[in-house]
C-alpha cells in the first residue's frame, strides 16, 4: 500500500503539536501581578517583581532605579523565571499565591533554601 508524503504529513504535524503543547507550561493567570520583597535586600532597598500575563517579567531594584527583564512560566504550580543569561529562578507560591519565595540559587529545590531565598509579597 503506497501512501504519499502529504498523507503522512498531518500525522507528523499532529504528533509535533501534541509534544509542543506538552512541552508548554501551565496557566499563568493565577500568578500575574506585582510582588515586592517583604524587607529591603542587602541594604539596597526593595526588589519589585512584576509578572505580566504575556510571559514577560520585570525585576526592579526600586531604590536603585535598576531593572532587568525576565521571562516566566508555571510548572508544577511553581513560577519559573528565566533570565537571558540562562539561569532559572524558581518561585514557590505560598498562602494562596499571596507570597512568592524565590530561590536564587539557580538550581531546583523542593522548596526555597533559607540562605538562597528572597521572599516577595503580592501587592497588586
Amino acid at each position: 500500500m503506497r501512501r504519499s508524503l502529504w498523507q503522512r504529513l498531518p500525522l507528523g504535524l499532529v504528533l509535533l503539536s501534541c509534544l509542543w503543547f506538552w512541552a508548554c507550561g501551565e496557566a499563568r493567570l493565577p500568578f500575574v501581578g506585582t510582588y515586592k520583597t517583604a524587607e529591603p535586600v542587602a541594604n539596597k532597598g526593595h526588589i519589585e517583581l512584576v509578572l505580566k500575563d504575556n510571559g514577560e517579567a520585570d525585576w526592579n531594584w526600586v531604590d536603585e532605579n535598576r531593572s532587568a527583564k525576565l521571562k516566566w512560566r508555571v510548572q508544577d504550580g511553581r513560577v519559573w523565571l528565566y533570565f537571558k543569561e540562562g539561569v532559572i529562578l524558581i518561585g514557590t507560591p505560598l498562602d494562596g499565591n499571596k507570597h512568592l519565595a524565590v530561590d536564587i540559587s539557580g538550581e531546583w529545590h523542593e522548596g526555597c533554601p533559607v540562605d538562597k531565598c528572597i521572599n516577595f509579597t503580592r501587592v497588586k
Partner: protein
Amino acid sequence: MAAAEKTTAGGPAVPAGTPAAACPIALTICEIGVEKTFAKGTLIVRQGDLPDNFYVIRQGRVKIFRLSPEGIRTDLTELGAGSYFGELAIVTGQPRTASVEAAEDTVLTEISREEFDRLLDDNPPLARQIIKQLSEWLVGADKRLEQETVHQVKVREVSWFDFILIGGLSIVFALIFNFYNDNQIPLIQGWGRAETIKEITLQEALAKYQAGELIVIDARKDSFFQQKHIKGAENFQVVFFDLMVPMFQFRLEQRQATPETPILIYGGTLSRRFDLDLAHALKDLGYENVMVLAGDYTAWEKAFPVEEKPAKPPMPMEFGLVGLLEWIPVSIFVLILIPPVRRSPYLAIFCRVLLGVIFIQFALSKIMRPAVFALNVVEYQMMPAWGVNLWALILPWGELVAGLFLILGIRTRTAAIFIGGMNVIFMVGLVNAILNQYPINCGCVGEVGEPVNWWKVLKNAGMLLMAVQIYFYDRLFVLDRGGFIWRERKI
C-alpha cells in the same frame, strides 16, 4: 501476463475495444473454443488457481492484477479486444500468476488446454509469437530484478547527501528560529568585544593576594564556587549580574572597595570566560582596577590556597512520563541478548518510535530557551567558547529532525547514525563530568534538577544500542520511491 498489451500473432494489431472484429483469420482461433460473456467486475481468472483455459478477448476490456499475501493489490495492465491471456499458466502448468477481471462487459473465447495445444501444433506463427513473448518477459523480469536490487542497495546505503540533509535542515531551522525567537541568543558569545581588561600573572596575583592587596572574586556559578574556591574569595555569579548588581555593590562596599581598589576576578573556563565577563561588568560600574589572570587562567587551583567541599549534585526533580520513557532503553540490554529478537525488524520499529519520541522531547525542552541549554553546555567545560551558542542552537534541532526522521521512516539509517553519534558525545560529556565531579545539571530532559550520574550514562548507552539495532535491522515502514510503504526491505 505481459505488462504491455498483447495481440494475437499473425494478424494485425487490433485496437482495444474493437467489437468482435478481432478474429485473425490466419490463426483460426475463431474456429475453436467457446464464446463466453462476463459482466463488468466479474473475476475471470483467480491468481493461484490451476490453469485449464486460454482466453482471447473478442470484445470489451479486462484488468490484470496481482494480490500479495497481505492483500495488497498491484494492477499490472489492461487488455482489450484482440489480446489474449492465460497462456503462461497453460504452457508452464503452474498455478495462475495473476487474476483477471472484466473491466467492462466482455466477450471472450475460452480455449481448453487440449485445444490450445492443438492450436500451437497447427499454428507455428502463434507458437513463435508466444515463445517470443515469454522470452521478452524473461528478459524484462531480469532487468526489473536488477533495478530492484540496485534500488534496494541504494535505499540501504548511507549517503553523504543524507547527512547533509539532516545537518542542513537542523542548521537552517536553528538559525531561522533563533532569528524570530523572543529568547534569541548571539551566535557567538562575546564576539567582537574589545578586550580592555588588565591581565596579571599568576605569581604577581599570588604576591598581591598574600600581601592582602587584592579583593578576589569568583565569577562562576554558586555550585562550582561551593565546591572549590580561593580562600577568602567572594562569589559574584556573573550569570546573575544584572539581577543582583546592587547586592554585589553592597558586598564590595562592605569590603571598602573603591574604584581604584585592585580586584582580581577568576573563574574562566574553556567554554566561557566568566572572569572576563564579570570584569567588563564591574568596569562598567566604575571599578577601574579589575584584572584577570594571564596565561593559564585555570591555574589558580594549584597556586592559591583554596577552600574545598565535596561536590554537591543538584537535587533530583521528578520528570514524570519522560523520566520513565528514558528508562526503557536500559531494558534493551536484555533484549539484545536474545538473537532472534535482536535481529527483528519489529524491534527496530519499536526502537525508532521510542528513540524518536525521546529525542523530540529532548529537543523541545531546549529549543525555546537556548540560553538555558547554552549555560548547560558551558558547565560541561568541553566546548570551546566560540562553539557553545552554535551548539546550543543547532543540537536541539538536530535531535528534532533526526527524531522525526526515525518516526516517519525517512532515511532511518542516517538518522540512527546521527542519534547514535549524539549519544556517544553525551556519554563522553557525562563521564568527563562524573570523573571531574562537576556539580552540574545533565541538561538532557529538563532544564534543572537533573544530576549527572552513571545511570544517565547507562541510559545513553541503551539508546546507542537502539540506534545500532536500527542501523542493522530496520526494514519496515520506510520512505521509498517517493511514498511511505509498508513492506519488507530485502535484498
